């Protein structure tokens, strides 16, 4: 059972839940950037939630399956067709053997997920089938002509599932650990003005344009471990939200950390979109 990639699109990678326990060796976690969307796609086709899916950046994918298989496309809503006939978004759909499945350009958002019943069965690397685009640890990038082996189907496709958790909103942050490196009022700046998503944003980080965050201390921080969602501030004062492929250590101060449940939004923000931050008031 396999998937033949006719057109890979702008950037298509295999992702699961990422690799853990290796940050001390300099290995990024990787994994699906919009985790709720990837989980939903897997549930729709009856996969375990850690099955590997394809993460598409602005669509543009064409694949043929052999034999026929159940698929689901979630995340950024892109038009889905099978041999030219429209199919649903965030629904289990059957692709007959030899038919061409096409995922077009999403009308909004950035990253769509294609789950196939049985999962993408590439060889795991260091315990994960995720591709890290920082150091390219993991399976190779999907390109035109790639043949992807599929795993054994373990469950039945489901007709209905929760399409999407909560609405988008401001990114909630916990303050710290290095807020003392910033001038008084820096948090007010961060939370008081919208920032604009910069074109250089990628799986490593969401780069933002907007008012620079003034520093209270100059110089470089001794390199320290970084977490997913860290809002790191380089010398130009413009914040970067660390996403799944972030370097495990860094030398710029982190003013706050985005709540894990809000990170899916970072996967779907487009260059030019506005984003707001708010200080998280409650702990769970």
């Amino acid at each position, binding site marked *: 059972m396999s998937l033949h990639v006719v057109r890979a699109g702008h950037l298509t990678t295999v992702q699961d839940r990422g690799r853990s*326990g290796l940050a001390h060796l300099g290995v990024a976690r990787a994994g699906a950037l919009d985790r709720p969307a990837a989980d939903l796609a897997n549930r729709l086709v009856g996969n375990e939630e850690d099955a590997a899916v394809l993460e598409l950046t602005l669509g543009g994918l064409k694949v043929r399956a052999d034999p026929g298989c159940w698929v689901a496309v979630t995340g950024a809503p892109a038009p889905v067709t099978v041999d030219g006939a429209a199919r649903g978004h965030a629904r289990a759909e059957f692709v007959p053997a030899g038919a061409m499945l096409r995922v077009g350009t999403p009308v909004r958002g950035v990253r769509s997920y294609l789950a196939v019943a049985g999962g993408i069965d590439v060889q795991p690397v260091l315990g994960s089938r995720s591709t890290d685009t920082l150091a390219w640890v993991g399976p190779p990038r999907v390109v035109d002509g790639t043949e992807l082996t599929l795993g054994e189907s373990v469950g039945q496709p489901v007709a209905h599932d929760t399409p999407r958790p909560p609405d988008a909103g401001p990114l909630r942050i916990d303050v710290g*650990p290095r807020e003392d490196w910033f001038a008084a009022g820096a948090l007010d700046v961060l939370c008081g003005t919208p920032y604009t998503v910069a074109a250089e944003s990628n799986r490593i980080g969401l780069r933002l344009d907007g008012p620079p965050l003034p520093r209270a201390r100059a110089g470089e921080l001794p*390199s320290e*471990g970084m*977490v997913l969602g*860290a809002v790191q501030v380089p010398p130009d004062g413009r914040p970067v939200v660390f996403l799944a492929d972030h370097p495990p*250590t860094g030398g710029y101060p982190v003013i706050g950390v985005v709540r894990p449940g809000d990170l899916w939004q970072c996967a779907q923000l487009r260059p030019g979109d506005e984003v707001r931050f708010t200080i998280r008031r409650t*702990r769970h």
Partner: protein
Amino acid sequence: MDRTSSQPVDPRGSWCSYHREPLTYFPALIELVEITRHTGPVTAPVSGRSVGAHALLVEVDDAVAALALATWARAVDIEAVEVVPGAASVLFDGVRDPAALLRVLGDWTPGSALPPGELVEVQVVYDGADLDFVAESWALTTDEVVARHAALEFVAAFCGFAPGFSYLSGLPDDLAVPRLDTPRSKLPAGSVALAGSWCGIYPTASPGGWRIIGRTDVVLWDQDRAQPALLPPGTRVRFRDASSLGSATQGLAT
């Protein structure tokens, strides 16, 4: 990575007593924790900063102390998905209860001896583009630089920059060298380099701003190996001058 240490587990460090208590720390700083034991109150020697809801950053004096704390924490089997030593801190990520972890870490004694790690010998052809610069800044001949560098014992303190890139501690502070003002756009894999009082070996071809003193053909990173990093934190490293070893240079690319 060894998570199944056979070392005895500190009973206070076990997570069976895990409970969710109201957290009393300020938004970013977990206060110095007072630990009361049968020996009486002891002030914990470590303090931590919370990093989001599920991580803790513990600051220590230097990279060797960070390595010592990280090694100790793994040996007593603390519960964290990631234990990441840095240049003067250890990050514990994937922690259910950071305040409870901080109490466990209170048992660590700063300055306690680090168990010696595995020793790896790295053969180097000392012909790097910055060897003359280093000789000048150390006020030595290039031969003396080679002898001095090869006489030191380094320890891999932490990794960063790229998978398998280890920051090697052991260069005396008076031999620190500045980075290049403008990094080179491409360095070959195996470049042996200095920056500040760190030594490092580039695992893959990459841009780099460190001062290159030589090259080696050891494979620092192989994701198909059981232990993909040749020099994980804690590994001791000695450099050998390959040109003095005759046939040892045969495998080295030019």
